[in-house]
């Protein structure tokens, strides 16, 4: 009797983990995106990065798993690591956005890297971005191109603490 109950409970648990998320709101509808921008480039600079704030309004952990944009040939999710005194920029599989919390993409940290820009980005232009989350849902946004000197005045940047 007890084992029967236990297996039933087990099956229920399995059922709920397997099917419950589908019944819930998609990741895209749970994530609020704010303050998006892409930095304008210096002459000869062929890469840039997009920054924004991802707010998870749901009780479930979500993750940004990819991004795309017509502005660049390659778009990747990146982070910066401080290792052995060097700043290492590395591609990441995903950027986590924990339940009821914010993940900031900011200078010196997570960013959406735009590699091989199709044309130089000038302040005032708009860069369309499609963000895809872990369940395949996505959000389309438009990020203004901003001069770096303007963003550094308003955005707190990630300070490195050495070792």
């Amino acid at each position, binding site marked *: 009797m007890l084992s029967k109950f236990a297996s039933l409970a087990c099956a229920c648990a399995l059922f709920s983990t397997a099917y419950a998320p589908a019944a819930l709101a998609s990741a895209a509808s749970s994530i609020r995106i704010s303050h998006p921008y892409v*930095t304008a*480039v*210096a*002459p*000869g*600079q*062929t*890469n*840039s*990065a997009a920054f924004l704030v991802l707010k998870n309004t749901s009780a479930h952990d979500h993750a940004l798993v990819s991004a795309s944009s017509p502005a660049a040939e*390659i778009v990747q999710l990146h982070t*910066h690591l401080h*290792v*052995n*005194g*060097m*700043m*290492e*920029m590395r*591609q990441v599989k995903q950027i986590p956005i924990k339940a009821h919390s914010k993940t900031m993409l900011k*200078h*010196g940290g997570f*960013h959406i*890297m*735009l*590699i091989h820009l199709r044309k130089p980005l000038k302040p005032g232009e708009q860069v369309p971005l499609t963000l895809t989350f872990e369940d395949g849902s996505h959000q389309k946004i438009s990020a203004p191109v901003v001069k*770096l*000197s303007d963003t*550094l005045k308003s955005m707190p*940047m*990630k*300070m*490195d603490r*050495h*070792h």
Partner: protein
Amino acid sequence: MKITRWISAALAVILLIAGGFYWLSMNHPSPNSAGAPQGGDFTLQSADGPRSLHDFRGKVVLLYFGYTFCPDICPTTLTLIGQALSSLSPAQQAQIQGIFVTVDPARDTAQKMKAYVRYFYPGLIGLTGNPQEIAAVARRYGVVYRKHKEKSGGYLIDHSAFIYLIGRHGKLRRTLPHGAPAAAIAAALRQLLQQP
């Protein structure tokens, strides 16, 4: 009572020593190199011909290493450097030379460096050279960098991101960490300008 006093005194000493080591490590650009970087004279190529550190004797020199392919770290630091320099008086600006040295000489030509640095501050000079020359200058200043191959076939360069401040006599005087705000860079420059 006496024992607790003794223990707290010993603890204080240990903390002081540990703090000292921490401070040393904070001011130490590269854990691989022995001793603090020596700095020193060098000659590299600008778009307008060779430039040496000793060309700027009498001026305070701000030295930074990076590469134009860098999407975030270098443009951010160069922007902060530009903001710091712009915040100084014209008389102070005239006594400072900012220099950006590439650690990616394969892609960064002198011409490319010139156009790039001017975007951040009109007076900046961009320098390149052959890989051996760059490596020699980097070693002297404690700059560490290495190529990181990407799956896409391209490469990035991991690099240390310190700002080096050189006094009027060509001696390396200060190293500022990555992320130093424009106001801190300006303050350090002002301080060096006051020294003969």
